[in-house]
């Protein structure tokens, strides 16, 4: 039983990271109807930036907050320079744009910081949490920070004018313009927020997967799985999907014989395929109906 509880809690901890990635993906998907394949690389780059800041002597939380701000600005710059001009381009052009962004960020990170694996600090420590052997303080910290983030986002989107405007721009862009909302800037803001959320995921997972340019590859696929499971049209679903994928991954790795660590990733992919076949809109998404 203790093994089970342990695996579920560990699953919730990594699930928190998947939830963040899924949320970042959904945020951009809602705004521009495309999946940002480079979301993971953006998060990786942000994590390197925070690491560099710490190397320069900035304390952890200072570097954390500064990275959030820089990532937010970076997300907006990427949207303005690359994806705003592509707004009316065909899907494949956008896909090419995302892949290019992926490759560019990955190589630039390798060029600046090289591809050797680096240690990344955790502000929470890695001792047992509250004396319990079930979960480490870093895992508890991952869950805690994610929860704070989710609450902040909920309050922002539910109770602020800007949040309302962003939701409106994502749901019915034409009507949003007709009430005077600058939808183009709302998309840019969405990119900024997605980049910032991704940077949190990167900084929290880095002590676990270690810092290197390919660190987010697997995480992003789990993020995709989470977003697809929860429904690409539902931020709430994406978060739930993240936690479910985290738990599922850990339990499958522990209890299904022969899966182990090596086959965890294919399981995430199998999950994506299964969900797409059985319930294409995901658990909480609404089916997209197009009038002909």
């Amino acid at each position, binding site marked *: 039983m203790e093994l089970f509880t342990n695996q579920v809690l560990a699953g919730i901890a990594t699930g928190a990271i998947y939830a963040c990635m899924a949320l970042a993906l959904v945020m951009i998907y809602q705004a521009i109807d495309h999946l940002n394949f480079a979301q993971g690389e953006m998060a990786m780059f942000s994590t390197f930036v925070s690491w560099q800041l710490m190397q320069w002597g900035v304390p952890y939380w200072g570097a954390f907050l500064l990275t959030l701000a820089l990532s937010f600005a970076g997300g907006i710059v990427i949207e303005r320079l690359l994806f705003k001009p592509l707004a009316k381009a065909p899907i494949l052009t956008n896909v090419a744009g995302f892949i290019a962004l992926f490759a560019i960020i990955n190589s630039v990170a390798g060029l600046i910081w090289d591809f050797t694996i680096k240690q990344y600090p955790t502000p929470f420590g890695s001792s047992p949490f509250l004396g319990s052997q079930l979960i480490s303080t870093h895992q508890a910290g991952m869950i805690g920070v994610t929860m704070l983030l989710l609450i902040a986002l909920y309050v922002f989107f539910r109770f602020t004018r800007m949040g309302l405007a962003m939701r*409106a721009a994502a749901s019915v862009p*034409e009507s949003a313009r007709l009430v005077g*909302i600058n939808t183009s800037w709302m998309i840019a803001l969405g990119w900024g927020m997605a980049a910032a959320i991704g940077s949190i995921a990167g900084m929290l997972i880095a002590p676990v997967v270690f810092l290197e340019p390919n660190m987010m590859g697997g995480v992003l696929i789990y993020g995709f799985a989470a977003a697809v499971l929860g429904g690409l049209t539902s931020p709430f679903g994406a978060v739930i999907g993240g936690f479910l994928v985290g738990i599922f991954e850990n339990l499958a790795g522990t209890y299904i014989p022969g899966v182990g660590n090596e086959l965890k990733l294919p399981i995430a992919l199998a999950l994506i395929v299964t969900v797409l076949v059985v319930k294409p809109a995901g658990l909480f998404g609404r089916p997209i109906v197009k009038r002909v």
Partner: protein
Amino acid sequence: MTALLNIKALKAYYGQVQALHGLEFSLRQGSVTTLLGANGAGKTTTLRAICNMVRSTGAIEFDGAPLSGRSTENIVRLGIAHVPQGRGTFTSMTVEENLQLGAITRGDKVGVVSDIERMYEHFPVLKQRYGQQAGTLSGGEQQMLAVARALMLRPRLMLLDEPSFGLAPLIVRDLFKILGKINREDKVTILVVEQNAQLALELADHAYVIETGRIVMSGTADEIANNEDVRKSYLGY
């Protein structure tokens, strides 16, 4: 009286297809004007051109200032509210959120709250449904919501695109009564595009008839209503 909106040589295009061929008309401050015409005559296009939602050339002046080169959202911010065809409801949001969105450009929180109350007085059915998802409202209720949302801007000019479309006759009567009241009490200038010519002419002071992208007739609502051709083509008697 001065013209609030002045349109000269307005041409509009959908891709290569020209939909408006040099439209000219003006709206008097405080008036209700209706654009009549058959399907495909260019009524909706005219409204969309005013809000820069379709490629167009020509001069559109609002209160003496040209609108050309302004984005849709900037035109709206000048006080031009557009109730689009199909109502443009934010279906996944609540009724109250839809009303708040109508006032999203306004900074006066207190005024917005009291205006929402005013809308609930105009449209009591919206008050009953304030927390409900707007997509679950009936067609008539959504049309009321669309008009209320537009009014939340405190517009100087309101553009209505076929507000009667798909509504039961009794509901349409109610809606037009409220539009008349809004025009008198709040001094909102109204431009309404309608298929239901009879109803539109009852509400309007002035009417234009539009055919294949051109104004072919203009006059007071009474003149137009009594015109032989209009009676035959649009009023059906």
